[in-house]
């Protein structure tokens, strides 16, 4: 093995690749992918299939995983393709199984999982016929595409397409921005005859709110600034639609930061492209800058639509010791919609 490999492809990115290909999630943990849906009573067959993605349900493991990867990088654990990187981690005493053990929050206790549950509630309240894939749900592979492992991404995509077909999935609703963008924009480029209809959560909500007479109203008035995740604004072009949905919620006021910091020009939270695993300090600086921009509007709440953005913004807020709450738009919608 070429020794310089580990200097060229950062450990974190190799770790992400192996996690996606072997464990079927970005964080490389052996977690139950159905735990979040306990008690939600979701069928496997329905008109729309919700693609939950790794993000929201497993984000609670991110800190542990990032810390392990950084320690490994410092200790010089590099790519060891033959034995697998988790074994290489084990050799130097980094126990990845410990990451899952330390976290005990589950279901609605976990701030990220709560968003996913809210999103399901919103879709149910808008009477969208939804189901989910349960244990069968694959990883879309978006992180490995951005890490530069295009071949592995394409193989994974083709395998997933076969799985979707065999399970009779026709229409997908994505909650994670990155997964949705991957399934909607990247898969058709690599799969011949790709015919799945992929929509982001906010598109479905916007459609339903237009058609139906349901009017979401917040009991307590709220003023928010909205942080557009990059995949939502610049890849899926949903900034305008998101604002339409926000404007339909009664009692919710949106304050925009400077024109060149919002919508399709929204600045980065620092949570993209696998940057957290390689340049954590830079990442934190980006988060602080973004929170400062949003706080200039003087709002008490920052809303967003992506777990990575949520994590980054919360990091920025705690770094600045600011009194700002970070929430997901799905949670606000859940609160505003009548039962």
């Amino acid at each position, binding site marked *: *093995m*070429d020794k*310089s*490999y580990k*200097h*060229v*492809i*950062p450990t974190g*990115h190799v770790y992400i690749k192996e996690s996606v290909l072997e464990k079927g999630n970005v964080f490389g943990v052996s977690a139950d992918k159905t735990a979040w849906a306990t008690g939600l009573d979701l069928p496997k067959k329905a008109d729309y299939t919700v693609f939950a993605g790794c993000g929201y349900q497993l984000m609670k493991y991110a800190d542990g995983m990032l810390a392990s990867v950084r320690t490994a990088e410092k200790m010089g654990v590099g*790519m060891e*393709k*033959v034995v697998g990187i988790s074994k290489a981690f084990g050799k130097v005493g980094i126990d990845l199984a410990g990451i899952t053990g330390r976290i005990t929050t589950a279901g609605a206790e976990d701030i990220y999982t709560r968003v996913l549950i809210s999103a399901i509630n919103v879709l149910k309240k808008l009477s969208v016929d939804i189901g989910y894939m349960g244990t069968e749900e694959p990883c879309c592979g978006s992180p490995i*595409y*951005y*890490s*530069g*492992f*295009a*071949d592995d991404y394409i193989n994974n995509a083709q395998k997933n397409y076969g799985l979707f077909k065999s399970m009779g999935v026709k229409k997908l609703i994505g909650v994670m921005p990155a997964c949705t963008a991957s399934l909607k924009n990247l898969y058709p480029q690599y799969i011949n005859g790709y015919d799945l209809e992929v929509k982001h959560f906010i598109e479905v909500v916007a459609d339903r709110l237009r058609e139906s007479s349901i009017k979401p109203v917040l009991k307590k008035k709220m003023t928010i600034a909205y942080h557009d995740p*990059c995949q939502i604004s*610049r*890849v899926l072009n949903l900034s305008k639609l998101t604002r339409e949905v926000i404007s339909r919620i009664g009692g919710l006021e949106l304050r925009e930061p400077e024109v060149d910091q919002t919508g*399709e*020009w*929204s*600045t*980065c939270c*620092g*949570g*993209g*492209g*696998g*940057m957290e695993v*390689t*340049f954590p300090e*830079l*990442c934190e*600086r*980006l988060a602080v*800058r*973004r929170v400062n921009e949003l706080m200039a509007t003087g709002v008490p709440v920052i809303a967003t639509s992506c777990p990575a953005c949520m994590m980054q913004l919360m990091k920025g807020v705690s770094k600045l010791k600011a009194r700002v709450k970070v929430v997901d738009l799905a949670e606000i919608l859940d609160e505003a919609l009548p039962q």
Partner: protein
Amino acid sequence: MKSKLQALEKDIIEGLRQCSHCKMCVSACPTYEGWYTQSSMGRLAAIYAFLMYGLGSEKELSKLLFSCSTCRRCQNICRAMSAGVETTDLIVKARNLLAIKFEAKGEDANG
């Protein structure tokens, strides 16, 4: 493997040649903190110098490429105000180039 690498290299260089070095993307890049190489244009210039003239090392290039958050703000500004270079896609392709190059090396070494 080799022809695939060459095709990718050609694809990247073709994309890079469209850049007019207008530096619009520099201020748009969230990671820019004073050095051009912390911005999209700098990263693209580094890829070009590396591929065309062999300047810099893979290690240095990797550092520049993996410090991009792929937020696509540069690509957006280039499409709106300049040459329409697919900056972020090129950075991701260059990451892919490094991965292919080094994975091939690793396989060779293992026989």
